[in-house]
């Protein structure tokens, strides 16, 4: 993309596209400066945050399963900590392509979620579904004992075709943000997720943990144009689309929508439109 497209694009105000605003913090390891500038730092550093967040999440899930009254309070406390350790946000296909453009080096890696949930390791290059971004990936290559399948280094054109391939098959693109540890986000990966595999989608939908936050867009449905082919119902990974079989149409719940745009790309009649989440006075609070 040329500079003009990049700056005057409608979506140029997305947070991750202004890299200069957080790049300063990304590899910032100087502890003295960190203590001065970052007032929200917790004692004991990042290890303490991770150590505190894990048991809180586990407690909250226990409370949910036992139908305990303390569940909302525990989950709210867990959410406050967990965004500092790890987080994800749903992207549209165009935003995912733009994210690839501004990041380097990039490599294919295997999906950790599918590994620890089903024991399925993507060893083959053509089956890999995660993209590692940034120089943190050199570490991934160096420790083959933990990162089993290693890193497959690629160029931008190949990565772009690869994202489009998985999007056509129906996987959602999620940006991985590995913590706000040093005062800013660290964008470390681009995942291709689906509902049963992905840990963060499951945790968000079942327990309401904000490990995954909603995207910048929202799908708005036009009932008059809908013909009831129900192609979009299969594609939605978040359960936001309900099929009204008797009246031959579909209803999209905007409060459950994560704004991935999978349903819009498959609709032949233009019944689904992606709009900016901040234009709606209710949805802009609901991340």
């Amino acid at each position, binding site marked *: 993309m040329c500079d003009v497209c990049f700056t005057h694009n409608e979506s140029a105000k997305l947070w991750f596209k202004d890299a200069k605003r957080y790049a300063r913090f990304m590899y910032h390891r100087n502890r003295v400066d960190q203590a001065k500038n970052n007032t929200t730092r917790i004692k004991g550093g990042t290890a303490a945050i991770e150590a505190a967040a894990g048991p809180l999440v586990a407690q909250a899930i226990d409370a949910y399963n036992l139908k305990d009254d303390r569940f909302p309070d525990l989950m709210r406390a867990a959410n406050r900590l967990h965004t500092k350790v790890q987080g994800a946000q749903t992207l549209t296909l165009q935003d995912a392509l733009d994210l690839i453009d501004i990041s380097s080096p990039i490599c294919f890696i295997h999906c950790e979620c599918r590994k620890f949930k089903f024991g399925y390791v993507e060893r083959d290059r053509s089956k890999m579904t995660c993209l590692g971004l940034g120089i943190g990936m050199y570490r991934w290559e160096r420790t083959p004992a933990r990162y089993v399948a290693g890193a497959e280094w690629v160029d931008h054109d190949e990565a772009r075709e690869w994202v489009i391939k998985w999007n056509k098959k129906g996987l959602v693109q999620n940006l991985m943000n590995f913590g706000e540890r040093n005062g*800013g986000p660290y964008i470390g990966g681009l995942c291709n997720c689906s509902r049963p595999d992905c840990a963060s989608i499951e945790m968000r939908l079942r327990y309401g943990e904000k490990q995954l936050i909603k995207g910048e867009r929202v799908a708005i449905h036009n009932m008059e144009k809908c013909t009831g082919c129900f192609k979009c119902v299969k594609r939605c990974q978040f359960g936001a689309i309900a099929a009204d079989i008797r009246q031959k149409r579909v209803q999209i*719940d905007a409060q459950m929508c994560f704004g991935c745009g999978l349903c819009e790309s498959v609709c032949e009649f233009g019944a689904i439109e992606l709009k900016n989440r*901040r234009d709606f006075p209710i949805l802009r*609070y609901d991340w």
Partner: protein
Amino acid sequence: MIGRGDYMAIQIKNKDIPVIRVKVDREKCQLPMICDYQCYIKCPQGVFHVHSYPNVSGAYTKPDPNKPKNYLVTGSAAPKCTGCMECTKNCPEDAITIEITLPEIKKGENPYKHPFESLEVALENQKQIEKLDSTYKGLKKL
């Protein structure tokens, strides 16, 4: 699924989330058969329901297009509303009013900011949002 349950039970208690009321003026909306239920059709969220009016008081009568007062439009699924204002634009009688009370803004915080966003980007977005808000009629701020 915790999607909307989370939204309602946890967050309203904290006053983090706006509260919506949908009112349909019963005197202006006496002839819903004429406009073909524009609110009911155009609403992408399915907020509006159409009841047959005598059914509300107990006994069911068959729907009759010649007796328009037999019908009643209500916004009974108001928590689903997203505030897109499609219904107020399309209503020929101006019978629908939507009241939104936005949550309290604490000092030094931006309620529109999401957890990954830098403050500078959030402030730029806030200016645009305030422009938008001035166009809505029923918007209140605490």
